[in-house]
């Protein structure tokens, strides 16, 4: 009789030891899983501990469903900032599955028209489209395809750079005495390229150019 009792006790001991190991293992794995989703690890541990209490074994099941369908901190804010054009350098590269589609209307694909009159009575008009190479605004006659000639003594040779990227227009002053102005504000060479997609006019030396969408 004593042998049977001992065997039964041993069996129960073995099973409960096995269950304990399994529970600890499960808690450890749950800790790691919720951490990967961006939650504190103890939330996963707590879910497994709740399973052991028995009285609340439905709660971890509900928690599993909640965890599956809730927003995870890993996914970032619900309205993630949209990146236009190339991703900034150093940004983590994620698989396309993690990238949310843009939720706003696509950018305006039209080009820009720069037009104005020269002090000597002439007029200039350019149409600028998305290109990889920058346009150069210069006072000299145009020699290369990207040259936009503004024949006026106050315009430097070259004077400024027009850059296009992903339906945006940028302007960079190349350091001329005449100066470059965006809507009346001075653009210095140390400012680098500035986005003028929404600007109304730019001034090169004494030549005022009106910026509209082509």
């Amino acid at each position: 009789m004593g042998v049977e009792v001992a065997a039964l006790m041993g069996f129960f001991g073995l099973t409960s030891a096995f269950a304990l190991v399994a529970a600890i293992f499960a808690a450890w794995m749950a800790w790691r899983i919720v951490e990967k989703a961006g939650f504190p690890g103890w939330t996963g541990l707590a879910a497994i501990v709740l399973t052991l209490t028995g009285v609340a074994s439905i709660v971890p099941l509900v928690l599993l469903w909640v965890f599956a369908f809730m927003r995870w901190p890993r996914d970032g804010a619900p309205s993630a900032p949209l990146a236009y054009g190339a991703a900034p350098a150093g940004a983590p590269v994620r698989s396309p599955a993690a990238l949310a589609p843009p939720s706003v209307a696509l950018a305006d694909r039209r080009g820009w028209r720069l037009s104005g009159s020269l002090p000597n009575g002439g007029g200039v008009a350019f149409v600028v489209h998305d290109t990889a190479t920058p346009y150069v605004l210069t006072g000299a006659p145009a020699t290369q395809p990207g040259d936009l000639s503004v024949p006026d003594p106050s315009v430097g040779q070259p004077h400024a750079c027009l850059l296009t990227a992903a339906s945006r227009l940028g302007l960079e002053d190349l350091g001329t005495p005449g100066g470059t102005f965006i809507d009346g504000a001075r653009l210095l060479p140390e400012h680098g390229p500035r986005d003028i997609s929404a600007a109304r006019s730019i001034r090169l030396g004494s030549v005022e150019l009106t910026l509209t969408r082509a």
Partner: protein
Amino acid sequence: MSYLIAWVLGLGSLALLALAIGHLLVALVLIIPTWRICTRAGFSGALSLFHLVPVIGSFIVMAVLAFSPWPAGEASPGGR
């Protein structure tokens, strides 16, 4: 005598069927959320079908999710 055997066999198969259906239902309750977790982590949703394996299936799914890097990206370990 043969009636008795037929009874026992029929009852046994019925019990087995009930057991199988019950297991399937329980597994389904686990598979649906796990399918979504697996796809959000970047794995195939079919990984959650391991829940159909009795006893150790859930451990396999959890181990894969816990110990292999998520293809869809993980939260940085130091918090954000």
